């Protein structure tokens, strides 16, 4: 009897913790949104975040997209050759890249790059009392630190994903034409015929949501970081892991909304 009671107690405590964290996260997200929309704005900070999140992520996102497109063409060829359906490769590549692979892979890569660095930076500022110091100097840390990052992430991810779309399709094209001996003109024509506005648009909407999630989780985990070096470390880990999981979950939900 005592054993069962013990289990219930632990489960209950876990559940309460979970709801507390969820509530805090939702409040955090709402405050961040409010501060993104309402003044004061810090244009210079937003600018430097746009460059940091967008421009400096180009290489890693471009490489990811390139090799994903290439391997996609290669793999679908070996699969489709069995049914004499090689002509569907262009179709498969462009749809998978624009709808799923570019936004999700770019999202995960940026979560690793940007989410981690935001969390580490803000957590360090928390641990060394820089955030408290900011408050005592009449600058709202939400407006100064968090809003520019969240705004920049939400704006930049769609751009990154649009570029990843192009590079990914190009990667598929390279393999199809130079490795699998497809006709270049026919491949491009097929790609162009199959792709629809909604395919690209849905990917870009997803990207904006992922950008919001990545920067929000980075800021949240940093802002509520524990003490010392260990606190900074776990804030970084939590930011990347939680952002990645939230990206995958929201990706499914958004696909359901767009394509069912």
């Amino acid at each position, binding site marked *: 009897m005592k054993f069962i009671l013990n289990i219930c107690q632990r489960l209950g405590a876990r559940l309460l913790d979970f709801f507390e964290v969820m509530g805090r996260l939702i409040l955090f997200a709402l405050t961040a949104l409010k501060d993104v929309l309402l003044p004061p704005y810090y244009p210079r900070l937003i600018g430097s975040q746009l460059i940091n999140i967008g421009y400096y992520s180009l290489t890693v996102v471009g490489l990811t997209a390139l090799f994903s497109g290439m391997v996609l063409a290669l793999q679908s060829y070996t699969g489709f050759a069995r049914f004499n359906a090689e002509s569907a490769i262009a179709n498969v590549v462009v749809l998978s890249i624009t709808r799923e692979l570019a936004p999700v892979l770019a999202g995960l890569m940026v979560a690793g790059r940007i989410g981690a660095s935001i969390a580490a930076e803000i957590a360090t500022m928390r641990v060394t009392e*820089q955030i408290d*110091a900011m*408050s005592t*100097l009449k*600058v709202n840390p939400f407006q100064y630190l968090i809003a520019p990052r969240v705004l920049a992430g939400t704006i930049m991810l769609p751009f990154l994903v649009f570029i990843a779309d192009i590079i990914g399709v190009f990667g598929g094209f390279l393999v199809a034409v130079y490795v699998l001996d497809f006709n270049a003109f026919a491949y491009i024509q097929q790609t162009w015929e199959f792709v629809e506005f909604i395919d690209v648009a849905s990917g870009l909407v997803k990207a904006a949501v992922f950008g919001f999630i990545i920067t929000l989780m980075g800021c949240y985990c940093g802002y509520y970081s524990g003490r010392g070096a260990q606190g900074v470390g776990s804030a970084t880990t939590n930011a990347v892991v939680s952002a990645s999981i939230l990206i995958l979950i929201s990706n499914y939900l958004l696909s359901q909304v767009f394509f069912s």
Partner: protein
Amino acid sequence: MKTFKVEMQDVHKSFGSKHVLRGVNLEVKKGESLVIVGGSGTGKSVTIKTILGLIKADSGKILIDGKDITKASGKERDELLGSCGMLFQGGALFDSMTVWENVAFGLTQGQKMSKKKAYPIAIEKLKAVGLSEDIAQQYPAELSGGMQKRVSLARAIASHPDIIFFDEPTTGLDPIMADVINNLIRKTVKELGATAISITHDMASVRKIADSVAMIYEGKIIWHGPIEKLENSGNEYVDQFIHGKEDGPIRF
């Protein structure tokens, strides 16, 4: 009735199951320099952070100029706290900014003053704490601990606060630099005509900067009196603390 500059009435604060403040009562007169002493983990830092609004008290009243900041609306609270500055224990300088940008931060970012206008004020404040213009373009990481403290002090006084808080101002400094900082605190507070609330466990610092002393123990103020009475407080907790004796009512 006389109103105090800062007044705390029965303030409580817990973190989870840890009951840190257990009914703090404290009054600080205008222009007075109060030092709160006490061992590590007795609630010194939490006490001043609740006054500043960095930590929210669970219950009790905190009055600044007779107005309760725990009940004030957002804007009113900002105004009341607008007159507060703080020197943090580790300096808490923004490491991504140069020294002068740090000092001018409250002016350029908080009050939206132009950089051109803020620069000479920042330099003036640096000079007030005995630093020259040469270091204005350096980053905090390039400075020694004592210099960082001074830059931090310059930043705290840059926007002419009414109330200044000092969190362990001399911790981690050599005795001479500690004395320099103590003198600077005394001087700047006097020049500003500000009310000062400091926390420390450095007795040399207490004797130098305090007008009155309060001792906190187990989340309560157990003694509060003028500095002259510190040696003859008649309180055995205070006696044990100021003489740094292991034997006594305080157990670790």
